[in-house]
């Protein structure tokens, strides 16, 4: 189990704010589809930045 950011696609407005603050290049916005990859270390910076409250940390 590792801690990672997960996205609630019903809330995500695909704005890219989370990409701008990720130090690990662990996320990518493919048009309207946000992908978070295995590089994510669960630092939570993107969670704090998301204007929609669409991100959270979870054990996956």
């Amino acid at each position, binding site marked *: 189990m590792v801690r990672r950011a997960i996205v609630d696609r019903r809330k995500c407005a695909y*704005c890219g704010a989370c990409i701008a603050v990720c130090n690990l290049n662990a996320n990518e916005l493919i048009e309207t589809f946000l992908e978070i990859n295995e590089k994510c270390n669960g630092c939570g*910076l993107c969670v704090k930045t998301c*204007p929609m409250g669409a991100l959270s940390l979870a054990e996956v």
Partner: protein
Amino acid sequence: MFDLVVVGAGPAGSMAAKTSAEKGLNVLLVEKRQEIGTPVRCAEGISKESLRRFVEIDKKWIASEVIGAKIYAPDGTEVVMAEEIAGNEVGFVLERKIFDRHLARLAAKAGAEVFVKTTALGFERTHNGLKVKLRRLGEEWEVETKLLIGADGVESKIGRMAGIIKTLKMSEIESCAQYLMTGLDIDENYTYFYLGNELAPGGYAWIFPKGDRSANVGIGVLPSIAKMPAKCYLDRFIEKLGIKGKIVEFVAGAVPVYGEIETAVTDNIMLCGDAAYHSDPITGGGIANALSAGYHAGLVASEAVAKNDFSVRFLRRYDELWKADFGGKLRRNKKLQEFFLKLDDPTLNSLARSIAGKKIEEMSVQAIVVELLRSNPSLIELFKDLLS
């Protein structure tokens, strides 16, 4: 082989592609979205003058014109700017869906190749330039180029891959939410700004009229001090002000409030617009600087091709140009932003009261600061650092 590949067809990228293509360069503009300009991530306000410098005004993408701005302190004290000089230095609210497409078309018309729904994944250095990796509809391939411009906005990966910029910290980015609302009862001659640490920590709320009783109603907050997502602050603002209207569009986004970066170039690569943190640290406005940076990067690209010199030393010419145009303003407004962040709501209220009712005849942050200093000489100590 291309002379130049531009990543991102926002105002910065399209302007860079247009300028360099007009100078005869063989240019490719790539945009990952399938529709340039949508979704909009902007409140669309810009001064007439900064737009005219770079594009011919076309009514098709002007949503409305305003004659001034009204700023509200936390207790509601109103400060009005530019009321007396209607017709002169007034502002536009754009229709960016149309504006961004128009700019991209100008680039295409000037001869640039345009690929949409195409993502730049990265680049590799070769003996005589770069190989840029692209992906479209799941297919990946590479193009060769002498120069690369990263105009890929706030989510810029080119700048980070090239080692030109560092990732933004929580105190260097505004997290924003906005509704396009209709059926509003507002005076459409003004843009409106609302300040307050409770209302919008580290940012402000805005109403920018778009004509026919509609407006962009939005908010930006600084994640380092915000206690909840921007959207929650926006909903609370709308409720508190009692804004009645229907939401017909939803916008989220982020804008760098970093200040001036030391350099926007490295060998073969230049950054412009939000990708180079060119947006204003106080207002979050970035269209004007994106246009200017794109224009100057395009010019330097054509000079570099003419001289066949793509070294960081040569490309520094671009740094000189954008810094001469707006670097000083970014620096000063970053300090101002840090200063404003220290003011609590009672101080904001008393400052606003000290200048309320005075005529501030220029629509700029500087004009307000000058008026504040005139009315509150005790502030001068605090501002010394800024004025130096």
